[in-house]
């Protein structure tokens, strides 16, 4: 009997899990294949989810009905909202997580998901007919068929691990790499690149002198990632801060002659935003110390992750260097730091649905696309999963815009820009940063999640109620004018200047020192209530942000509108740029290489001039007019 599914997902990391869950929730018969079912959703690097810009991604995944935010909340051992001293757009949630619990919790969701099946296998090759993928072949030669295949194999393709001058094959330390797939894909003209990343040593907490370090506690009022969670009540665990010193740097320097990075053995390009400790002491030689964080690996383990000390230096140097650090004088290393080189497929070979341009029905998601980070991977997995099912159903794809979500920025960047290092999300990558906030991810994206069956009705009803309450709240703020005497008494209390006229709440609320709840004594209304429930707190938050930052928000909305008009002009896939005679030479080459989907995308490509855009618009208009003529003739 033929073993057949709608979708096969290869790899059960952060991308693979989201992809598989999304497909199955959408009703597709889905098979998730992984090399080792005990290491599902592993946090190969630091035991934390979120952070600047990444926290936004998690909130968006959650609003679309993904799993990451839920599991992160459920297995967190610390919650922290970064950038709290700044404006709402750059607030970024982050959790420290129990690594093992995270993995098993995610596995539990996978196992309990109807339509989803798990199998442990290594995939040796894809079944390809013509230019379409139709299934996979496992390590023991079994053929499994599917209408779509999502590749989410992370760093496992031809993974090569380095510790000092030693190197060996592996997808993660202690786990085998996967070979064969990359070669097969290359034979279809898919370009392969090589990147590098690394991870620090893990240490035994029983041998750490925490008294010599500065503890870093979580927030007192933890804010969860998921819309499903109102309040978090857990015992939080602290992280600890220590620093390297001159002695550490000397030890590290003495090992550079055995560094695979500095001896030219590592060829892959590593991320500049995540340099190894040896890179830090070489490139920033005048810096006398580097900050390190000890992050607990979980509740039921003594292991700590030594954040900031990523290294591929040999074992003896790692041990000596770590022991030169304050508080770590007697520390025992439980696992060594290492670097890993792996194959990736430059993502400009993908459509914005994550489907390969070269092989139909084949999707790529996660680190295999040259990104770094669990959150970036999960976001891609989710989008690849949704789009694979939509294509099978013959429906329009879901391509989020740069103005809608960080996920949209991620996707657009991946398919239109050349990668020079592993891609990580930053808030500065989002030109509409003020609109894409972590606090409004649900308002931005939950409609999509619900439409595709990833968000349940109850959650969606709540969103609709919230949206309505915000609208009404804004109307109230714009129309209510508190009595003069009372408002001035209130302003006086707040140390704010009195008003002469009957001003609206909206106008008064624009003052930085005034909050919506300050009007609680004047009006009996949940909108102004200072001890409102979670629902109303979220409504208040949105009304305040909209009123206080309206000028900036309006400005960005205007820019969005301008961009949208370009985004709405679709460039047909069959367009032959050689035939568009008036394009500049460089513009033509770049357009041929990236094959943008819209005029907007084309305009963001480096090398495409405004004149080229005008020429393309003329070409499009000409083309549509000709097609119109054909239709009339027929």
């Amino acid at each position: 009997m033929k073993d057949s599914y709608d979708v096969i997902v290869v790899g059960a990391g952060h991308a693979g899990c989201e992809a598989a869950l999304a497909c199955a929730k959408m009703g597709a018969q889905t098979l998730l294949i992984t090399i080792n079912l005990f290491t599902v959703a592993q946090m190969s690097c630091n035991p934390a989810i979120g952070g600047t810009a990444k926290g936004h991604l998690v909130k968006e995944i959650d609003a679309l009905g993904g799993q990451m935010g839920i599991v992160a909340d459920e297995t967190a051992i610390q919650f922290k909202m970064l950038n709290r001293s700044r404006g709402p757009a750059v607030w970024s949630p982050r959790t420290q997580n129990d690594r093992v619990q995270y993995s098993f919790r995610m596995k539990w969701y996978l196992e309990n998901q109807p339509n989803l099946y798990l199998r442990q296998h290594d995939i040796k090759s894809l079944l390809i007919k013509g230019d379409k993928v139709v299934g996979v072949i496992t390590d023991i030669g079994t053929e499994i068929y599917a209408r779509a295949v999502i590749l989410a194999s992370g760093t496992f393709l031809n993974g090569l691990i380095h510790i000092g001058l030693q190197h060996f094959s592996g997808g993660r330390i202690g786990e085998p790499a996967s070979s064969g797939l990359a070669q097969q894909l290359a034979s279809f003209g898919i370009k392969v690149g090589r990147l590098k990343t690394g991870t620090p040593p893990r240490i035994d907490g029983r041998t750490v002198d925490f008294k010599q370090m500065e503890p870093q506690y979580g927030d007192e009022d933890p804010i969860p990632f998921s819309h499903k969670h109102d309040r978090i009540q857990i015992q939080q665990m602290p992280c600890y801060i220590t620093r390297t010193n001159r002695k550490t740097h000397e030890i590290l320097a003495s090992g550079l002659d055995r560094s695979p990075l500095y001896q030219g053995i590592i060829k892959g390009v590593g991320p500049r935003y995540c340099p190894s400790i040896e890179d830090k002491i070489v490139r920033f030689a005048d810096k006398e110390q580097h900050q390190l964080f000890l992050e607990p690996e979980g509740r039921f383990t003594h292991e700590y992750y030594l954040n900031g000390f990523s290294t591929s230096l040999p074992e003896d140097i790692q041990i000596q260097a770590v022991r030169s650090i304050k508080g770590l004088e007697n520390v025992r290393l439980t696992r060594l730091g290492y670097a890993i080189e792996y194959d990736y497929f430059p993502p400009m070979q993908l459509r914005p649905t994550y489907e390969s341009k070269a092989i139909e029905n084949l999707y790529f998601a996660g680190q295999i696309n040259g990104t770094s980070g669990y959150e970036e991977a999960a976001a891609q997995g989710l989008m690849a999963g949704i789009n694979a099912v939509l294509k099978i159903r013959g429906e329009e794809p879901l391509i989020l815009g740069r103005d809608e979500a960080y996920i949209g920025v991620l996707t657009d960047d991946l398919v239109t820009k050349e990668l020079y290092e592993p891609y990580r999300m930053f808030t500065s990558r989002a030109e509409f940063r003020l609109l894409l906030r972590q606090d409004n991810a649900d308002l931005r994206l939950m409609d999509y999640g619900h439409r595709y069956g990833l968000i349940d009705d109850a959650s969606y009803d709540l969103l609709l109620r919230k949206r309505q309450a915000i609208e009404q709240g804004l109307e109230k703020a714009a129309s209510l004018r508190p009595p003069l005497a009372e408002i001035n008494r209130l302003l006086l209390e707040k140390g704010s200047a009195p008003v002469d006229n009957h001003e609206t709440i909206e106008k008064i609320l624009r003052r930085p020192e005034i909050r919506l709840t300050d009007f609680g004594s004047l009006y009996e209304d949940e909108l102004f209530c200072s001890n409102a429930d979670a629902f109303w707190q979220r409504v208040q938050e949105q009304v305040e942000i909209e009123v206080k930052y309206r000028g900036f928000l309006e400005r960005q909305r205007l820019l969005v509108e301008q961009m949208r008009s370009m985004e709405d002009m679709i460039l047909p896939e069959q367009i032959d740029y050689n035939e568009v005679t008036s394009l500049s030479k460089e513009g033509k080459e770049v357009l041929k290489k990236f094959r943008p989907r819209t005029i907007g995308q084309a305009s963001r490509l480096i090398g495409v001039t405004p004149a080229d855009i005008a020429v393309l618009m003329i070409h499009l208009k000409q083309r549509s007019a000709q097609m119109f003529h054909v239709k009339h003739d027929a």
Partner: protein
Amino acid sequence: MKNDTIAAVATPPGIGAISIIRVSGPKSIEKIAGLFRASVPLTEAEERRMLYGKIIDPQDEQIIDRVLVVKFLSPHSYTGEDMVEIHCHGGRLISSEIMRILIESGIRPANPGEYSLRAFLNGRIDLVQAEAVADVIQAQTKAALKAAQRQLEGDISKHLNAVKNDLKETVALLELALDFSEEDVTFLQSHDLKKRIDRSLKSVESLIKGFRYGKILREGLIVVLAGKPNVGKSSILNKLLQKERAIVSDIPGTTRDSIEEWIDIEGYWIRIIDTAGIWGANGVIEQKAKERTLGAVQNADLVLFVTDGSAEIDSEDVQALKEIEEMYNGKIVLVRNKADLGLAALNERILQKFNGALVISAKTGEGFENLEKQILAQIAELPHEDEVICNDRHYEELLKAKSELESALEALERNLSEEFLAVHLKGALGCLGRITGEVSLDEILDHIFSRFCIGK
């Protein structure tokens, strides 16, 4: 697609007694109505009918020119949008002044070929012409780009790039604080930030001033033909004019003994003055003419001292030179005309004094290429008191950059955090980028990664 309102001088520079400025877009009538005073407000005026009136600079209520204005209502116009044409007096000065106030009122200078593009997209141009329109746009862009680059050579470009790089660094420092707030690096404090923004604002303002008082744009480079009578100064002038085919008109107010003409050499505006060859004369009339001549010499950027190359230097030449040098200490080029009659010997000392001589013939045209080169070389050496911006688009971007920087300072005053300041500073950076080349986000990240040890 929604369009903004654009303007451009439609007549070629330097030709004709009338210049036409075309304005197209949804706000064209409303915007021009605010700058135009006539018997009927433009908004109420009859369509397609010339209206006589004055164009006023709203800043100081000064009349810029008396003009004829005609409006066209959509879709019955060249572009298919609402349009206004302003027919003003010819010459570069007036049309560029009008362009300046249009830009200041928020109208954008049109991109090359943009009128044709709009006409095409609005169905006003036949489909068959589409390729042609595309070609025109590409060609005009190349030409405009070249022209813009030429204007951006030297000091202006250096100055602009310095402002841009400084701003890029400021933005990078803001982004550092936002994306890497957990890192162990020092972030920009608000008073340092204020200093940085103030510095950028000042630089942008000085560049804007450069546009308004741009010497070359306003007055042209003043080149004076001087020398004793009958050495062929007028023939040289005529030859230059004939060659360039760029006669504007005689500037009113010039006297019959000192003629001014405007010529265009490779896109540069040159005001060339042919002086009466009266030196050492005593009569009342001659004295007046001489004063004017010396006045012209005094203001010159370059003096071409013309002699008869077929004859030896005589005392009259020497006397003329002496009087020129008393009034003027700029560059003097010795021009030996009438080369077609054969060259007489030249005193070595004089050759040395002038660092050589230009040998030309106004009759045959010999040596004129060198003459033009000499004039252009002089432009390159001009002392730029202010960096001169003379491109409408550049001017518009600088105005926008200025307003962004001012908004950034305002936001700083209100204690808003980095991401709000970044909106304005990135806005300003975008404006400067459109003049000297875009700054990509990756450049900002590059800057952060190269300067700060980032990463856990």
